[in-house]
């Protein structure tokens, strides 16, 4: 009894308050997004807001349950939980139900559960357990392979279920590994590769190569701060390009300008690289290496995409990046989403006064695009409040993670913070046209039992762990 009181006294009420605030605000916006004159009652369980009220009740139950669970349970059962959910995920292709083209749901009675949502928590537990083990050295070959396995196994399974959005979330664990000592270069390169990939797919390789070239010159200039040399370098590059283009023009060839750019990039890189070796400037050589690598990566991504991949694979990637999910021409959904948010102005149109979301101009207005309702009905004040709540929660979680002496708790806390961050960044980013349209929910806001419960589980396991920060967590 005394111990239990102790737990409730040690839980972080700030986090819980933010959590409750988000759920309530989220529910209000779901109510507005799908508001129906004929079903005004908030307890009308035929409507999404009635159901969401049930999900919220269940979520609070889960939260209380987690806080009443012994924290040692999570440490001890981290791997078993991971393995059980992996097994369930493996079963999904056989017993799953297809919703929106993704066979990632399991039907239990009237409820639909999405195991991939719970996989985030299980993977976080497993990562925390493995990283906090004795003799863990992040840069040992064995560790890297094990970490890669823990992360990539669920990613692979979820990919197979056609739920690419959820799979991509696992990439955010790189931030956790970075916190635990992974070389920053890995993070840098991952980021660079992702960026080059997205740019190549969304824009086009020619533009990507031009951006990379400009970026390389800029970085070089910022390091060296010698304008004359930068200008000479730019001159060499454009000179080579111009000569090639002129030759093509004179012989009236019809070569794609991309190839001239590529040739110019390779030739000038070679020249600068030799020069860097001569004057023994290692940093310049590295920069050139990164540059050339990125350029070749961009071009090969484009080549592989267009010449090697099958159509259905291309569709998958296009869908992932929100390029082809659009039935009414480029950016229709994102444009409608921006119209909804933009029309809210500073104070918003007021509760239930939104027209764009309520009248279905915005797709998925209660789930993935719930932020549109916030923007339309509550305006800039509402959107800033929601962003403020998220940033507050994220910073608070990092603070909590850092104050735990237990490495397990800290790693797990970072997992929670980064997963929430990724959802926040991609979900809100897509509604305002800053991120590709990847269908992932906004935590605690979007309609849906699975996502609400899994995020509650994810968060409250950490709140429970944090409540035990003064205990020695042993295993």
């Amino acid at each position, binding site marked *: 009894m005394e111990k239990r009181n102790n737990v409730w006294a040690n839980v972080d009420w700030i986090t819980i308050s933010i959590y409750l605030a988000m759920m309530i605000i989220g529910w209000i916006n779901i109510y507005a997004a799908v508001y129906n004159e004929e079903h005004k009652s908030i307890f009308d369980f035929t409507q999404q807001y009635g159901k969401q009220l049930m999900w919220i009740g269940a979520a609070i139950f889960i939260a209380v349950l987690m806080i009443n669970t012994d924290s040692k349970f999570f440490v001890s059962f981290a791997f078993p939980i991971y393995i059980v959910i992996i097994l369930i995920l493996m079963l999904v292709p056989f017993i799953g139900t297809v919703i929106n083209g993704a066979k990632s749901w399991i039907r239990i009675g009237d409820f639909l559960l999405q195991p991939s949502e719970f996989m985030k928590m299980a993977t976080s537990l497993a990562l925390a357990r493995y990283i906090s083990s004795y003799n863990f050295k992040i840069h040992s070959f064995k560790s890297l392979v094990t970490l890669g396995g823990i992360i990539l196994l669920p990613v692979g399974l979820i990919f197979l279920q056609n739920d690419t959005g959820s799979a991509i979330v696992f990439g955010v664990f790189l*931030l956790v590994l*970075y*916190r*635990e*000592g992974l070389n920053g270069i890995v993070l840098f390169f991952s980021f660079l590769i992702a960026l080059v990939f997205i740019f190549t797919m969304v824009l086009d390789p020619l533009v990507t190569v031009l951006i990379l070239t400009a970026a390389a010159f800029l970085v070089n200039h910022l390091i060296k701060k010698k304008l004359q040399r930068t200008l000479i370098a730019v001159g060499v590059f454009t000179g080579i390009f111009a000569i090639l283009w002129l030759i093509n023009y004179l012989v009236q060839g019809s070569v794609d300008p991309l190839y001239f750019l590529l040739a110019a990039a390779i030739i000038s890189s070679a020249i600068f690289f030799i020069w860097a070796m001569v004057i023994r400037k290692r940093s310049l050589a590295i920069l050139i290496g990164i540059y050339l690598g990125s350029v070749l990566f961009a071009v090969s991504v484009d080549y592989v995409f267009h010449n090697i991949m099958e159509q259905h694979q291309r569709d998958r990637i296009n869908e992932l990046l929100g390029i082809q999910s659009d039935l*009414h021409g480029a950016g229709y959904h994102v444009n*409608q989403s*921006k*119209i*909804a*948010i*933009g*029309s*809210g*102005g*500073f104070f918003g149109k007021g509760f239930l006064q939104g*027209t*764009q979301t*309520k*009248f*279905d*101009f915005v797709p998925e207005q209660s789930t993935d695009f719930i932020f549109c309702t916030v*923007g*339309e009905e509550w*305006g*800039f004040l509402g*959107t*800033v409040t929601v*962003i403020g709540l*998220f*940033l507050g929660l*994220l*910073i608070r979680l*990092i603070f909590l993670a*850092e104050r735990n002496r237990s490495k397990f708790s800290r790693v797990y806390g*970072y997992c929670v*913070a*980064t997963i929430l*961050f990724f959802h*926040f*960044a991609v979900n*809100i*980013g897509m509604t*305002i*046209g*800053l991120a590709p349209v990847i269908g992932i929910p906004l935590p605690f806001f979007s309609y849906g039992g699975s996502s609400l419960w899994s995020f509650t589980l994810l968060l409250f396991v950490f709140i429970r762990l944090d409540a035990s920060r003064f205990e020695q967590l042993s295993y």
Partner: protein
Amino acid sequence: MDTFSKRKFIIAGIMLLIGAIFIIRLFTIQITNKTYKQFATRNVLRKIITFPARGLIYDRNNELMVYNKAAYDLMLIPREVKSFDTTELCRIVQLDRMELRESIKKAKQYSYYKPSIVAGQISPDIYAPLQEKLYKYPGFFVQSRTLREYPSKSAAQALGFVGEVNQRIIESDSYYRSGDYIGVSGLEKAYEKELRGIKGITKSMVDVHNRIKGKYNEGLEDTTAILGQNLMTGLDASLEAYAELLMTNKRGAIVAIEPATGEIILMVSAPSYDPNVLVGRQRSTNYSILDRDSLNKPMWNRAIIGRYPPGSTFKLANALIALQEHAISPFDRFSCSGKGSKPISCTHPHVSPLAIREGIRESCNSFFWNTFRSIINNKKNPADGYQAWRDYITSFGFGTKLNPELSSEVKGNIPEVALYDKWYTPGHWNAMTIRSLAIGQGEIEATPLQMANMCALIANRGYYIEPHIVKAIQDTNRVYRELKFEKKVVDIAQEHFNTVIGGMEAVIAETRLQFTVKQDSFIVCGKTGTVQNPHGADHSAFVGFAPRDNPKIAIVVFIENAGFGATYAAPIAGMLIEKYMNDSIAPKRKELEQRLIETNLLNVVEVKKKL
């Protein structure tokens, strides 16, 4: 101990950076950029226009001449169209697929945001199934409106017709939008502003599937449609129909005026058409058929645009002027040598010498040559004499537009002194030079309406009221507003009218018209005209009024290429007068009536007419 602890700042920094980027982005789209608000309004706002029923047109006996029937237009907003089952839509609306494609293309050319008509004037039985399926076709909606219906099927040219507005009208008048109707001719055009009423606008909010979700701005900006105003005319619908029956297979015009009020009782232009053919979906086909009939020109209103020499009917005017100017006296006699008369030969032998009463009765060219010469020579020089004559003639309404309503009316022509000065040089022309005017030929041109007006002026013994079709307008509150028309008095003494009327009475009572026009119960006065036509056979003309005292109707009948006025124009006028006065035709005249109806005068002569 934890060497990587400071990395928490980098991770937290990344999060805060993303948050900051979001806030900046939201600031720009929610506060700086105002276009999203407009887009949002455009997304949900649907203006639905309710068209008021167009005003009705009544005849002098309060019988409906024009009313409305319900119809529906299928409208389209190109921007909102999603791909749909064209075959099904075509089947419901009974439209050809090519037609549908063509209208969609036209709609896109007009505007992506403004509605255009895809299929106009859908009947109620097509409308019902269409309305049910409409949810399947975002971008399409139905607008109800009314179509004209003409129960008496007559007076097509006078009533005119309505048609879709063209681009020029849309650009010059903001009231009209693509697909709206406007009066194109006749009364429909003249009283467009009264008839059309005021459109009502309902602003509704629609969802992405174009379903109406509620009122916009709580309906504060909505306006209700205001009914068009009704026109009360002086036309007699049944007489009009009867006149058109008599004019079957004839080319010409009839105008009848109530002398005391100036109300136009009849305005017939033959050949005519059933005004109902210019309504509904067959309108454009029928329109081009009528428009291309270059021989009969059924859409021309000859009553107001036909420019004819008035012929012998004009002798009445000359007689009045001569008497008023004391150029002749009622007792002056002139001799006539029949066909051998100089300078104008007379058409037939008759008593000679003869005074004005017989002169009118016999329509003696010699008599009127002398009369006209007396008028011209009554002043110091022929030019002054002519000018005095011309002043009288124009005061009769010739050479000017009489009717304030119908914009297509022509002025006709009464030459000015300057014209003859130009032709013959000043001082080198005299009565002899312009002698054709003595018998209503030559340069003068008059419309049937002007001739009828002259007749009303004689019937009134000295004045006329501006001839008009619409006498009152019934406004939205069903209150009548009587229209005012100017009374124009001519400077001719009443006794001279009585003299001339005496001659007109003799025309009916003492010539062969006593068998075709003369009535038992009242006295008819009239004058025939056989109008020489440089382009073909003579026109048959008649002006007359009845009863002699307290006249009720003044009429002109003008039939192209029909020969002697006494043969066709006068009997037809007689029938109409009888019908108007007695409501029926006496049995003894039924045979004549039948003959008149059956006579075909359309192909009398091969002519190249210029009206």
